[in-house]
């Protein structure tokens, strides 16, 4: 009896769906880690994702190649990241204000562009998308094969990205310096690390990764762009990053949890629980997680504080 309930919600199909739902969160939260580990709050992840989603679609529309579209998303996210970096690092604007401005700007920009270019409201025309692939061998492993054997290439990219970011952050010279800059920029500066340059690169990278996360929505998961299609995923990614204590694997775990909640929500709808109620679940989970489960999450110490030389 209980077993049936459990397997109804936790099974390979749901987990595979969870992984799909988690993918954009993983990209964006890795972006968040870059930015915040360097000491710059990036509440603009949402806007960077949205821009990436739009530009990914747009480039794909003109080139007919979603992989080129992906590069477009990467670059456009990076450019928005650069805007945030210039505001936060060069002009020492309050980072929350700058990020919020980017979010609002991105909504207006994408809606406007969609109408100007395609003369449509709401949804873009369909574009080619990155197609799901089947992994040889892995596909045939029981359970695991069902979960990860047949997924979008961007899902695999996201998983690889987590490993890469982890190695970068904790095992390379640049990762060490990045963390030092985020914790104690003055200490980093006095031993010769260029704090400003480090932060620029980190925030631009952050935007680029968030852009990829957005593009997953428009040219991998779906094959079109819709107004405000990120629907708060940038904020959820931010929550995943905090939930995961600013570590790649922690954020991956949190993103998976949120993705799982998303997938379960679809199942709950099938059994007749009101849609809007179940859609709250991921968000409630976020708050519960942030409030108590993880204990106190300590952000990088200099976060939000612009660095000034004497």
């Amino acid at each position, binding site marked *: 009896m209980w077993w049936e309930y459990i397997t109804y919600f936790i099974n390979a199909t749901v987990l595979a769906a969870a992984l799909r739902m988690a993918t954009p969160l993983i990209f964006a939260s890795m972006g968040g880690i870059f930015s915040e580990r360097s000491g710059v709050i990036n509440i603009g992840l949402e806007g960077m994702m949205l821009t990436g989603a739009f530009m990914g679609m747009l480039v794909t529309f003109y080139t007919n190649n979603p992989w080129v579209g992906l590069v477009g998303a990467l670059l456009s996210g990076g450019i928005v990241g650069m805007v945030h970096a210039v505001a936060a690092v060069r002009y020492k604007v309050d980072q929350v204000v700058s990020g919020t401005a980017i979010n609002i700007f991105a909504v207006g920009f994408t809606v406007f562009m969609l109408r100007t270019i395609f003369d449509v409201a709401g949804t873009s025309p369909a574009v080619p998308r990155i197609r799901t692939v089947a992994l040889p061998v892995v596909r045939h492993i029981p359970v695991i094969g069902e979960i990860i054997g047949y997924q979008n290439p961007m899902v695999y990219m996201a998983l690889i990205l987590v490993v890469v970011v982890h190695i970068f952050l904790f095992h390379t010279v*640049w990762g060490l310096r990045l963390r030092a800059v985020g914790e104690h920029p003055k200490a980093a500066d*006095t031993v010769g690390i260029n704090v400003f340059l480090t932060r620029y690169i980190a925030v631009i990278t952050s935007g680029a990764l968030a852009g990829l996360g957005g593009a997953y929505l428009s040219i991998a998961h779906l094959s079109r762009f819709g107004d405000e299609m990120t629907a708060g995923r940038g904020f959820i990614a931010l929550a995943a990053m905090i939930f995961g204590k600013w570590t790649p694997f922690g954020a991956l775990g949190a993103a998976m949890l949120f993705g799982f909640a998303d997938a379960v929500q679809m199942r709950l709808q099938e059994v007749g629980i009101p849609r809007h109620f179940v859609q709250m679940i991921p968000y409630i989970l976020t708050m519960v997680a942030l409030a108590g489960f993880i204990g106190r999450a300590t952000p990088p110490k200099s976060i939000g504080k612009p660095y000034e030389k004497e």
Partner: protein
Amino acid sequence: MRRVEKTRVTALQRREARVRRRCSRPQAARPKHLHTFGESAVENILELSHITKRFPGVIANDDISLGIRRGEIHALVGENGSGKSTLMSIVYGLYRADTGEISFKGAPVQIGEPRTAIELGLGMVFQHFMLVDTLTVAENVILHAEPHSWGFVDYKRAVKAVEELATAYGLRVDARARVADISVGQEQRVEILKALYRQAEVLILDEPTAVLTPQETEELFQVMNNLREQGTTIVFITHKIKEVLAISDRVSVLRRGKLVGTRNTAETGQRELAEMMVGREVLLRVKKEPAKPAETVASVAGLQVRDRRGMPAVKDVSLEVRRGEVLGIAGVEGNGQQELVEAITGLTAPEEGLVLLHGKPIQGLSPMKIKRRGVSYIPEDRHKRGLILEYSVADNLILGLHSDPPFVERYLFRNDRQIKAHAARLVESYDVRPPNPDQIIRTLSGGNQQKVVVAREFSRDPEFLVCSQPTRGLDIGAIEFIHQEIIRQRDQGTGVLLVSAELDEILSLSDRIAVMFDGRIVAVLTIEEADEQRLGYLMLGGDPQQATGELESGVTAK
């Protein structure tokens, strides 16, 4: 590609080889006291000429010329604000001098930022450490000079390099520990290691002992001796004359931005240095008449207090303070003094026991109520508890009195005229500088900030005065002033409880001394019975019977 990698490795190996050489052949560096007075072969490794630095409104350094000799420990002393830290910050590239020149190893140098200084072979350990808490000791030491291959940090080699350096100079620290988990003393050692790893030949220590316990200070001096023996030159900034005499070879004194003079430490003494620092004769011991104690004003009986973690911190303490006497509480910090004071002043409620003022219990009352009954309190951390740093001097002077007449009118509104008059009076009589009641208190020097606290608390004519570390971090002039004020309070008939980690302070102010160890009062001595050795022995948990012979151990001895 391969070749690039190879040269990188060899550059690193060269560094390591150099470090090893320094470690393994300590004596080879150069003959020890090359600079010994009278010899002609003195070489200045660092030479400052005519350095002037102005900040808005002050001349921090006024035409200072100074030579630091290779291999010496050169003490740089002066009161707070005399310009010693500014001068060394210029050397380290944090500030730029307006005029003047610096030469290093005989060649003129331009040091625009710290990394230039580091490349030259200068290292500086600041009062506020430049360490990344979340990283390990080794990671902090190697930061931006990491041993690596293909960009991957070679952590094992880093740990090894740090451990080798640490052993060579006697700097005990665990290379793999996170900085957040180690003590302040150890953090300082990490800072020194950072400089040594970067092959500093001149090491500047900015008030290194300010944050250390006496034991840690001893250890630091040992390290400084090791460094000197192995050829490192040290500039030691301090305002404690005793330390100058204990460790330095030569000493330069700054006063108000000017160099007063340089002496060989062996040929000078406490009195001369104090005079050079302050510019007038200084009372090294407070002048005071014997106390005329009257009836008991305040007492505690059977007091038990727990600390913030819930551990017993004050264990069955009984004491009494009489009118017109100073009862000193001596003890190594962290033996329950802070909790005792907090229980008396109402900041925490004792678990058991009584606090009596004029025979009436006050334990558990709010700090405000206790204050209103005539208790004044100089807290040990003036920034956290004594002052609101963003407020003006005038507003800080009425903290705690702010809701009392005459500072309030019509129940609600500030009476600015009264507040101003009150401030003007106190600023004048307590010599707060600058004498501007509207000045934001953060911009005052530590000594003047403390004068504001003292002025506020003393001017209320307290019956009972609790002073916790009243002169911590202050310079000689301010210490002298505050000591005199405390004695003046005593002579007016106030009962004074003085808690201090400075034995000198306890000995020069107290009439009776209670020694606190592990939450208990282990002995109460009269000033005649007490001396530094005996107190030191008791403070470390020595047997009171042995220490005194005839003294009755325990509590409210007279």
